[in-house]
């Protein structure tokens, strides 16, 4: 999906002359097409994410729509204060692109496990958080970000993801909107990121009649959509490749609880959060293995 995102960004950069791509010396064999086509709107800033983010803000002040690109925690947590103060406070037109969501770089160790980013970034004012589930959503995310003015974060997995959505469809994604992947009764699973494909397979194998939704954006949910969801389903299961604290599931509970407290919602559904149980995984492993030992599965909840 990172290649899809970058190739889409390349095609968009032809039309959108303000797109600028900065990389922190990562993205070898991925970013070259952009660098070759748009040398005047590309720069490798070296392994210096604080400066990359600050340079992005300066370029954004001068009219560019700047994408910073690196792996997981580096363009995000490593320079979180630059993101807070320079990008978000100044509402700078900067998009942070991180590859290696969750355990996508599983065997590389905890340095490369991107498992707290959603909680931290979604707490920042003016920040739009995007977490596509497949290459089709990643492409739609690139289209959205080319038009969107202001700070955003795009959390990409890595490579080899299957398409969940029909790639021939012109998918549009927007903050606050969930996408219904399959209908069902009584229970619904809300997933963000590429763990969605695993969830669909688990439901299929178990033969359960559960609905499945994708959440390509975190936070800012459309209240009407959430109320409908709460009326339709008694049980909601959120799943994310991220720590339990403050992540996607928390964002859903917060939004539902606010609606319930404000009497916009008559009945709270049971919200079951499936996430990493607030711990580091010190062992090596494939993405599949680490997801399993972190307990990231919906199968335990089937009857």
């Amino acid at each position, binding site marked *: 999906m990172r290649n899809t995102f970058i190739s889409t960004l390349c095609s968009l950069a032809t039309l959108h002359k303000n797109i600028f791509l900065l990389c922190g010396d990562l993205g070898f064999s991925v970013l070259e097409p952009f660098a070759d086509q748009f040398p005047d709107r590309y720069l490798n800033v070296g392994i210096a994410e604080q400066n990359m983010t600050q*340079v992005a803000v*300066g370029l*954004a*002040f*001068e009219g560019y729509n700047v994408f910073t690109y690196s792996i997981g925690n580096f363009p995000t947590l490593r320079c979180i204060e630059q993101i807070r103060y320079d990008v978000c406070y100044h509402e700078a037109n900067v998009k942070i692109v991180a590859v290696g969501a969750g355990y996508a770089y599983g065997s590389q160790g905890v340095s490369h496990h991107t498992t707290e980013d959603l909680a931290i970034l979604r707490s920042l004012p003016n920040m739009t958080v995007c977490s596509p589930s497949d290459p089709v959503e990643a492409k739609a995310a690139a289209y959205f970000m080319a038009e969107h003015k202001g700070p955003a974060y795009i959390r990409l997995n890595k490579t080899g993801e299957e398409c969940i959505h029909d790639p021939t469809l012109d998918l549009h994604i927007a903050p606050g909107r969930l996408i219904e992947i399959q209908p069902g009764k009584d229970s619904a699973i809300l997933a963000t990121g590429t763990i969605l494909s695993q969830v669909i397979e688990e439901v299929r194998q178990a033969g359960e009649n559960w609905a499945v939704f994708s959440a390509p954006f975190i936070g800012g949910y459309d209240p009407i959509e959430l109320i409908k969801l709460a009326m339709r389903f008694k049980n909601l299961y959120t799943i994310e490749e991220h720590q339990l604290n403050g992540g996607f599931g928390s964002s859903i509970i917060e939004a539902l609880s606010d609606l319930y407290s404000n009497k916009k919602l008559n009945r709270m559904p049971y919200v079951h959060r499936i996430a990493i149980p607030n711990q580091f995984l010190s062992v090596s492993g494939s993405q599949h293995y680490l997801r399993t030992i972190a307990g990231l599965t919906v199968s335990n909840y089937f009857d």
Partner: protein
Amino acid sequence: MNLHTFAKQIRLLALELCFSKNTSHIGSAFSVADIVAVLYGDLLNISSSTRQHPDRDRLFYSKGHACTALYAALDLRGFFEPGALLRDFTSDGSYFTAHVNHHLPGVELSTGSLGHALGVACGVALAAKRKQQSYAVFAILSDGELDEGSNWEAILFAAHNQLDNINLIIDYNKLQSFGTVAEVMNLEPLKDKFHAFNWSVFEVNGHSITDLQEVLRTVKTTCSGQPKCIIAHTIKGKGVSFMENQLLWHYKSPKEIDYYAARAELEAS
């Protein structure tokens, strides 16, 4: 414009602000006052009517804690509604925060967390290169904030990318939060460090208006492929004898007795 008078007015207004609103960092404001006076009184191609013009020079004021010097200069140059600064500085609901705020006219970047402005200035300088624009980019940093690693990332970056439209002024008053720079985190040999990072380096007496004018005019008109660093040797608290070189005035706000004594000294200067 008489720049000596302008610098004196900046100090008097900064003093008034720190006294009337009981705020800190007057020593830092006095240290940088002459530099700010030369920039806003002479060198910078900017005014309240051109503050958003694409060709204006850009100043990034990294030592946001010394806000009173910048606010005073902008106020004296007519960027703010008359009387608003003295009335509203640090008041409830005012944009005049005690660290520099970009919601105010003429302020390019909010600062207060150290080590942010030089990297942003690099981005703005890079944009000028890519778009072939000729505005100058100035950044004013304190000496203490050179402890921040982000500055050294930006220092590497500016030289590597030959951003010769960047003019970095270091307000080298040699005092930081807990003591002298030499004691807390020695920067010396500072000039050699910048040379080693492939910058052009200039040294100047940061309180000589004529020397500052000369060196800043030189750097603004020189583009030789290297970014430029101007090490301005300054005195914390400059202009008021009992504040000069005193760490205490990094924190202390002037009481009535200090205020009148300081005002008398400044007015007599």
